[in-house]
């Protein structure tokens, strides 16, 4: 062996060794993407991921993007085949969409090996994790949409929290008379308006009809939808919504309720995470009541559904199932993780081993509401396909701008939805 050869070998051995070590290290890494930004508990997610790395030795490479941009970004990633190993997603039509695109891999083996059947209640597991007969999703938290309010503002106004539609209308009228906007809505980025459509349709037409509409088996021009929109229109015409709802985002609406400018906002339990971050005390500074039955004397058979998203995680087709699966199992199965995440986010844990006493009074109440709901329905933009969801979100925003012509609004949405369902 010449000197030159020896020198080359001496150079190559450490390089190859480093490369081998580096490749082993690289395998112990999970790339993730998610939509949990600053006001959506990002700080605690970072803690959770750090805890996972400490427990498993697997590092997590995080690339968070904005909540709304995530929706477009992940679908572009699915189309281009460039995806992280694991990403956060919403149970329902969104997961179904990427499952049908072949972008995800089933997690049934991990689910069974970890015994998650004993951890996640069957109802949640069946509704959120199963797609085309296989498991693809681990739930991370459950949210519930309801009327959030500031109890001090209601007490000062001398108004009782209502448990009926008529009571709610009376309360709104009284707040209006006292110079307080009855309803805060921040629909600048469209999605907050969906809870009004969801609840009004669920309360008047029922969950079965609403499921048919979400699946494209019913029309936006049906009398059921027209009726729900007419009720919504009557609230707008009565001047119950804040002026310029499309000028505000959901955080603005939350602030309007917190500072007594408005009486209620229809929002998910993540609003509690935002308010707690501002130092508000659950039960004292904020609380919620359920969306009451609408015209119960006309629709006595309508089951009372609850609405909200289930956030969770999915594993992409090219991910290493060992490391990615370890992370997914940790996220749902580790009780400390579930407790930290859900108690700070205002949500309910899908893990039955989380101590119910860990929840604050508002979150505990939300858990009871979910348990008591006849049906738990995913909110509009998670219940129908992404292209159709765009049609509806446009409608809600446009409706807050101009609610005068329901027939024309619904005809436009139906035409858009028909095209969306064909995609």
């Amino acid at each position, binding site marked *: 062996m010449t000197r030159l050869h020896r020198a080359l070998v001496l150079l190559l051995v450490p390089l190859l060794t480093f490369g081998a070590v580096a490749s082993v290290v690289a395998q112990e890494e999970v790339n993730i993407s998610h939509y949990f930004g600053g006001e959506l508990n990002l700080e605690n997610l970072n803690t959770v991921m750090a805890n996972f790395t400490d427990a498993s030795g697997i590092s997590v490479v995080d690339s968070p993007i904005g909540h709304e941009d995530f929706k*477009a970004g992940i*679908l572009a990633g699915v*189309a281009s085949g460039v995806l992280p190993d694991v990403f956060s997603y919403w149970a329902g039509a969104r997961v179904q969409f990427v499952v049908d*695109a072949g972008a995800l891999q089933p997690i049934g083996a991990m689910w069974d090996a970890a015994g998650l059947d004993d951890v996640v209640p069957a109802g949640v597991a069946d509704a959120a994790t199963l797609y085309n007969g296989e498991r693809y999703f681990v739930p991370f938290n459950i949210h519930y949409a309801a009327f959030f309010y500031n109890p001090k503002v209601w007490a000062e106004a001398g108004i009782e929290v209502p448990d009926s539609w008529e009571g709610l209308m009376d309360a709104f009228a009284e707040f209006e008379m006292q110079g307080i906007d009855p309803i805060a809505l921040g629909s*600048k980025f469209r999605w907050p308006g969906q809870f009004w459509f969801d609840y009004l349709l669920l309360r008047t037409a029922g969950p079965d009809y609403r499921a048919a509409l979400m699946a494209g088996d019913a029309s936006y021009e049906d009398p059921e939808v027209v009726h729900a929109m007419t009720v919504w229109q009557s609230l707008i015409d009565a001047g119950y919504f804040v002026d*310029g709802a499309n000028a505000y985002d959901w955080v603005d609406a939350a602030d309007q309720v917190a500072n007594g400018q408005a009486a209620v906002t229809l929002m998910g339990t993540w609003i509690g995470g935002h308010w707690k971050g501002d130092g508000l005390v659950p039960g004292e500074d904020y609380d919620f009541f359920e969306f009451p039955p609408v015209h119960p004397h006309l629709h006595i058979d309508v089951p009372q559904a609850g609405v909200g998203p289930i956030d969770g995680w999915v594993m992409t087709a090219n991910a290493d199932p060992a490391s990615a699966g370890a992370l997914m199992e940790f996220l749902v199965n580790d009780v400390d993780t579930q407790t930290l995440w859900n108690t700070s986010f205002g949500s309910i844990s899908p893990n039955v081993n989380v101590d119910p006493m860990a929840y604050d009074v508002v979150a505990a109440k939300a858990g009871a509401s979910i348990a008591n709901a006849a049906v738990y329905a995913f909110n509009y933009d998670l219940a129908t396909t992404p*292209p159709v969801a765009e049609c509806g979100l446009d409608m809600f925003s446009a409706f807050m*701008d101009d609610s005068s012509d329901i027939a024309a609004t619904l005809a436009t949405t139906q035409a858009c939805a028909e095209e969306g369902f064909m*995609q």
Partner: protein
Amino acid sequence: MKLSLKASQRLWTFAFLVVPLSLYFVVVIGPLLATAWLSLTNYTFSAFASPEFAGLVNYQRLTGDDYFHTSLYNTLIWMVAALVLPTGGGLILALLLHGRVRGANVFKSLFYLPITISMIVIAQTWQWMYQPDWGLLNTLLKTIGVEKWKVFWLSTRGLALGAIIFAWSWQQVGLSMVIFLAGLTSLPGEMLEAAQIDGANYRQSLRRIVIPLLLPSSVVVIALAVINSLRSFDLVWVLNEGGSGSSTLAVQMYRETFKSLRAGYGSAVSMVLFAIAAVIIVIYFRRVRRLEHLYD
């Protein structure tokens, strides 16, 4: 075989151009051709299937799409505004700050500063300015006693687009100012002195000498402003996602492609945008060539 000097120069020129031209093809020409092709297909992200040729269907559809008409109209409005606000504003600032003005450098820096800031940060800043309850503008209105004029800057039809264009112009005006200042610095002093000796006042000098001689700078400023106006996406998206009638072609292109997942249709919108930009760029280069001949 020994190459002639001319052949050798050509060979080297070609060798140096191969890499940049290849890159240009990969990152500009290739995607352009791919987009043109996609615009003739029915491709949707959600089908996750190969694009199928659909002829001019997407372009036919554009003619009956009200949202597209609004986006096109708004884009043209924005282009016209780009000719007036940043260009005119930049010229006025340059004229005010040219020469021996006390603290001119500080003001120049302040006016130029926004151009160095990311458009997303600019958008967030103006989001706060336009916030209806506690934003700076409505707070000012409140302070001077006109609280009942609470303005919903970003959600009122007819006002939202103007508010967004104003925020954009605020950023762009610094760039125009710097280019005009460079033009003013290169003006021949003896010509202005001669005009002064001949009795021309400031207004006459400005109209007859300064502005005509700033023509090359004006062409650059106008071209940059108009081309930047065509790229108006990020500011609109962050401020109100193109709601309340403020959508532009760039916003519609994004919405159709990445939100509604109609990649074929979104590509057709982007080709319209490209066509407008191409016309402006051709006019710009022809103008520059004419100016070069003039100065030669």
